[in-house]
């Protein structure tokens, strides 16, 4: 078996056992990137030299018997939303094209301490806003299963690079499904932990009450190992949860006994693609064969999840992205040219205000502008109560639906996406229809509960389908064990694109 087809857990184990070196592993993935990425477009930057140097140092330490970190020699990629000290962190935006953070995100620092090897930064929808990776200001990323299709988003680069064997692991972020949806569309495993499980320090903010970092890998065992390294309280993020981190990688292979799975009838109503529904129903039969009981539950506010999500996410984004003013960092318009042009439609603005308006107009792409506009509108005088406050109230009703469901069942199971991957360009002009496809994933961000996407089959056209499992807040251990039971009984996650 090739190193690029080996799981993260097995790579780490082989490194410890001396079956291969960190340099050999890094070189295999870098070669794969050189050969494959020109057609996929997952990487925004490849740090080949730095990765090899890092791998050499780890090998040298191991050879001389010095202690090494838990992931020593494991290569991985980072979504370009995670701050990396003195290396570009673009967020897929012209606004941050030349931004080099003066610090590492806490998650990046933890991976460094664990001696993971950084292969590079991967593509994403601008500021993590989008479901197809087409909102990146720099390049399109293609689905390794069909190059005419989108990889999903916003962590499209993460899912595509893992599916194409260019990295065994990638770290993404999930605000409304941005880890789970691309994982489903690319046939890999993606975890969104409980809100606050992983520190958000150094994760460039989109919607702060919803954002959460999550790993993408080829199996549940792999994402369990990464969660174990990334999770934990961080004094630099006051919303990070101060609770012990269970040894996920040690318990993941223990099947759950007397498992009761819930299916929400709202998840099988109109709009669900036939192939997706059959694959999910087949997955339920697999669970039944493993002794699980399936129980129907109701999530009466589910039809309002997308509306609630987009109001809250856009309000928070309009506030968070107000920091991009062309003053402290990020793009600034050519001020002398602006002044030379003289007056415009905003005649009564000062030159400083015009600089803000024009810098932001030039630095942000269409989807980011749309969301800032929607959020600004919903927060503006006269609309705040009707939109933002109402959305926060419906958010609690949605959470109560889930709390009630989890009194009866251990995990909720359903589809990740109503369809498989669509063609590039198909939905670019129709933002609302793109938003509506997030209907199954956004609730976990509104409620804070952990959720995972695991491969569960293919469409007749050969595109991957994802199974969505959700657990109550802080129950990652249950979620991972339940998801592993399915992977242990199936081989969908071992399929690779040609």
């Amino acid at each position, binding site marked *: 078996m090739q190193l690029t087809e080996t799981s993260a857990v097995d790579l780490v184990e082989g490194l410890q056992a001396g079956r291969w070196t960190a340099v050999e592993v890094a070189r295999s993935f870098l070669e794969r990137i050189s050969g494959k990425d020109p057609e996929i477009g997952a990487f925004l930057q490849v740090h080949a030299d730095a990765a090899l140097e890092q791998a050499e140092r780890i090998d040298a330490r191991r050879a001389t018997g010095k202690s090494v970190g838990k992931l020593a020699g494991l290569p991985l990629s980072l979504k370009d939303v995670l701050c990396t000290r003195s290396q570009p962190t673009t967020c897929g935006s012209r606004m941050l094209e030349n931004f080099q953070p003066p610090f590492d995100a806490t998650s990046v620092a933890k991976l460094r301490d664990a001696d993971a090897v950084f292969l590079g930064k991967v593509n994403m929808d601008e500021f993590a806003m989008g479901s197809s990776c087409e909102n990146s200001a720099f390049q399109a990323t293609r689905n390794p299963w069909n190059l005419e299709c989108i990889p999903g988003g916003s962590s499209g680069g993460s899912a595509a690079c893992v599916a194409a064997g260019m990295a065994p692991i990638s770290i993404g972020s999930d605000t409304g499904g941005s880890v789970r949806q691309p994982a489903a569309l690319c046939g890999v495993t993606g975890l969104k932990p409980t809100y606050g499980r992983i520190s958000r320090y150094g994760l460039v903010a989109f919607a702060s009450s919803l954002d959460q970092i999550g790993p993408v890998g080829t199996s549940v065992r792999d994402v369990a190992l990464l969660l174990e390294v990334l999770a934990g309280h961080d004094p630099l993020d006051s919303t990070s949860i101060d609770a012990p981190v269970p040894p996920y990688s040690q318990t993941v292979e223990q099947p759950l006994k007397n498992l009761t799975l819930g299916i929400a009838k709202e998840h099988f109503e109109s709009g669900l693609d036939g192939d997706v529904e059959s694959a999910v129903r087949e997955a339920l039969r697999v669970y039944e064969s493993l002794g699980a009981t399936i129980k129907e539950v109701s999530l009466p506010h589910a039809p309002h999840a997308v509306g609630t999500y987009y109001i809250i996410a856009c309000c928070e984004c*309009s506030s968070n992205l107000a920091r991009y003013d062309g003053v402290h960092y990020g793009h600034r318009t050519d001020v002398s040219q602006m002044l030379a042009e003289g007056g415009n439609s905003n005649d009564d603005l000062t030159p400083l205000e015009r600089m803000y308006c024009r810098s932001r107009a030039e630095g942000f792409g269409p989807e980011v502008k749309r969301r*800032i506009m929607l959020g600004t*509108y919903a927060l503006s005088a006269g609309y705040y109560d009707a939109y933002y406050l109402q959305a926060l109230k419906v958010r609690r009703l949605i959470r109560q639906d889930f709390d009630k469901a989890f009194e009866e069942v251990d995990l909720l199971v359903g589809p990740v996406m109503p369809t498989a991957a669509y063609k590039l360009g198909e939905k670019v002009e129709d933002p609302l229809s793109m938003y509506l496809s997030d209907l199954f994933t956004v609730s976990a961000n509104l409620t804070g509960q952990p959720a995972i996407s695991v491969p569960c089959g293919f469409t007749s056209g050969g595109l991957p389908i994802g199974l969505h499992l959700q657990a109550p807040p802080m129950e990652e251990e249950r979620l991972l064990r339940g998801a592993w039971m399915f992977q242990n009984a199936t081989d969908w996650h071992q399929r690779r694109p040609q």
Partner: protein
Amino acid sequence: MSLSREAVTKVALLARLELTPEELDSITSQLGQIVDYVQQLSSVDTEGVEPMAHAMEQHNVFRADEVRPSLPREEALANAPRHNDEYYRVPAVLGD
């Protein structure tokens, strides 16, 4: 309920976004569709429901109020589009 071009122009000013006439047209129509869609939330009975601002509701997270090293000035200024080694520079705010 669709949005007027004037309302969208006002929102663009609040959001500090200079939009071209073409952008204003497309955003007016797209925002109108999205606002019409999210309007459905008004049909939900939320009488007596507390707003939920955060997923894991935590309150009053304190740390010790101690002096700590902060970002050195040169690092804080390193990404600025314009600076004079001490301050960020911007176009004149007050008269000439």
